[in-house]
């Protein structure tokens, strides 16, 4: 019999009635490559090159892929830290791709980010209290006594003592610093948080603490997450649905259990088979798909399917024609000519 929580999760996945919070269509971000004395543009790095997905309220979408696949850029474009080159970003149905000035500032109250390295993202000269208070002051949300109370409340919410408010970031361990980063992200009561590799810089024994905190906060505050990570096991644990990115494109998107049980794209399969498992018996028995070669440069992606240069199943068709973004099963999309054939 499924547990109550498992059923609750199944509901979240299948419930099409839950409103869509964020939707991106054909989103692209190209960075120009400049050369020479006159800084002429000689090409562009196609970091994100046409991705589509949506995230429903209170849902966690995992975004996985290897370094350079464009997953962090995608997160930053959505938050409008970069301007999109093309495509549409809709937040609560409203197109936010072009908003500027005051409306962008207001929008930032509802969309926040947790960064990978808590060492680099916290100002070492500011006390923890002023780091957490800064967004509240900046947006004129609170001042005086109310501000102090709100800071204490935020620190408590992430499991830190309010006594720490007068200390500096260097006095804290990596896990505690990440909690400070999370408190800052929560300050303006956002609805949507992009977590960009939030546990990658942390020790194994601390990772679980931070992941549990993110899940507790999501339940308590009704948050929606885009969880960017290269850790497949952790993404499976935290995400309701998972999107797999390769060289600027999403190659597969599915409910997490389904994706891990039955990956359809050859890249997803290779990625999963490459991730080591902490069980010697299983490791000895596993057949690994070892990809040859390296990821091509996003400045000069291969024609057709971008994975075709490394794909063990590639045919001439693959480098000739770009695969369609097909929905093979309800909620399970894949971009591969041959997915589902075998």
């Amino acid at each position, binding site marked *: 019999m499924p547990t109550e929580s498992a059923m609750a999760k199944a509901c979240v996945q299948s419930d099409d009635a839950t409103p869509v919070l964020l939707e991106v269509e054909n989103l692209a971000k190209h960075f120009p490559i400049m050369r020479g004395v006159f800084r002429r543009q000689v090409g562009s790095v196609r970091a994100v090159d046409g991705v589509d997905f949506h995230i429903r309220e209170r849902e966690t979408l995992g975004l996985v892929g290897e370094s350079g696949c464009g997953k962090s850029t995608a997160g930053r474009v959505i938050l409008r830290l970069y301007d999109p080159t093309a495509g549409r970003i809709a937040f609560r149905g409203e197109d936010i791709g072009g908003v500027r000035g005051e409306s962008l500032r207001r929008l930032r109250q509802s969309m926040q980010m947790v960064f990978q390295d808590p060492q680099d993202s916290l100002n070492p000269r500011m006390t923890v209290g002023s780091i957490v208070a800064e967004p509240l002051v900046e947006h004129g949300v609170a001042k005086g006594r109310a501000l102090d109370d709100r800071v204490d409340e935020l620190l408590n919410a992430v499991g830190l003592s309010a006594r720490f408010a007068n200390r500096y970031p260097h006095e804290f361990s990596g896990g505690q610093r990440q909690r400070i980063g999370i408190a800052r992200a929560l300050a303006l009561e956002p609805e949507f948080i992009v977590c960009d590799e939030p546990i990658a810089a942390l020790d194994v*024994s601390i990772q679980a603490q931070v992941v549990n905190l993110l899940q507790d906060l999501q339940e308590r505050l009704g948050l929606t997450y885009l969880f960017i990570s290269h850790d497949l096991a952790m993404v499976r644990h935290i995400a309701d649905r998972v999107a797999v990115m390769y060289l600027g494109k999403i190659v597969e998107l599915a409910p997490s259990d389904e994706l891990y049980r039955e990956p359809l794209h050859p890249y997803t399969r290779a990625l999963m088979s490459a991730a080591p498992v902490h069980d*010697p018996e299983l490791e000895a028995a596993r057949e690994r798909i*070892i*990809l040859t070669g390296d990821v091509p440069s996003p400045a000069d992606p291969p024609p057709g399917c971008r994975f075709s240069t490394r794909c063990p199943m590639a045919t001439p068709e693959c480098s000739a024609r770009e695969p369609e973004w097909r929905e093979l099963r309800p909620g399970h999309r894949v971009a591969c000519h041959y997915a589902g054939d075998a």
Partner: protein
Amino acid sequence: MGVPLSAAPAAEAVLAVEDIQTRFHTQEGVVHAVNGIGFELGEGEVLGVVGESGSGKSVTMLSLLGLLPTPPAEIVSGSARLEGEDLMALDADRLRKVRGARVGFIFQDPMTSLNPVLTVGYQLTEPLRLHLGMDKAAARERAAQLLDLVGIPEPTSRLSDFPHQFSGGMRQRVMIAIALACSPKVLIADEPTTALDVTIQAQILDVVKRLRRELGMSIIWITHDLGVVAGLADRVMVMYGGQVVERADVKSLYARPKHPYTRGLLRTLPSPDDEDGSSGRLASIPGHPPSLLEAPASCPFAPRCEHAFDRCHRENPMLETRGEGHEVACFFDVDRGAPRAD
């Protein structure tokens, strides 16, 4: 496999390390980084060394190779017998002859350990000419063979390339080739795949497994990734707070961990066949690693341990054999769920 895979170290250990103690003199005080580490490495054995940042795993290896700057480091005691000869008693000149010839090592970041202004060919032939007295032509030929061995395409022409012309995974292969140049008895690899993507990590692990089979080297593999060790090591040594807390053959360590820290670590990882996914919470180890600013007078894990009782805060447990080839440093018997009788 052509290599004997015994759980216990072979009768004559290739490397026998005893009682290494290393301290760092810093502004905040004396950091007791390594507190009495000893281990044996058998012929053709892969020893996995697992621990979090600050557990002393890298400092142990740097101490025995004489690679720590003194000051701030101070090596208080220790011996490391490589085929009977104590490396830690050698003078700098003779130690330099051992490093790179009889002991090879690979570090985490290949970009900082390769010299950016010298060709890969030069860096590969240098140890061959220095340690083996080869002439230029012979060294170049051997260098090309080494690049071929680690799976670099077109090895002869790539000898004249500089490190920046290689990708991250290829650079790490070059590092492995340099470490293997003089056919060392022992290869020490410190987090060699941590900076790499999983699909590239799988390629490197594949190369290492093949080399170990073909060359019969003894390998020390340092990592924080319990998954990598599960698939590679014969025996595993778990470190915490500058001490060895548990050591066993790989299967019994993962199947029957006896130290509360090892058990905790394995429990915090999301299970590979975790069907209930995001509904549950991960088990976590509360607190954070010790600062090591005091000499260890009690169990370093006691403040975070769910089983700690008064004795754990008074005495530091010794590593003792509990069951065949399984050693643990703990006053608590996790199998019986009670403190040990002795």
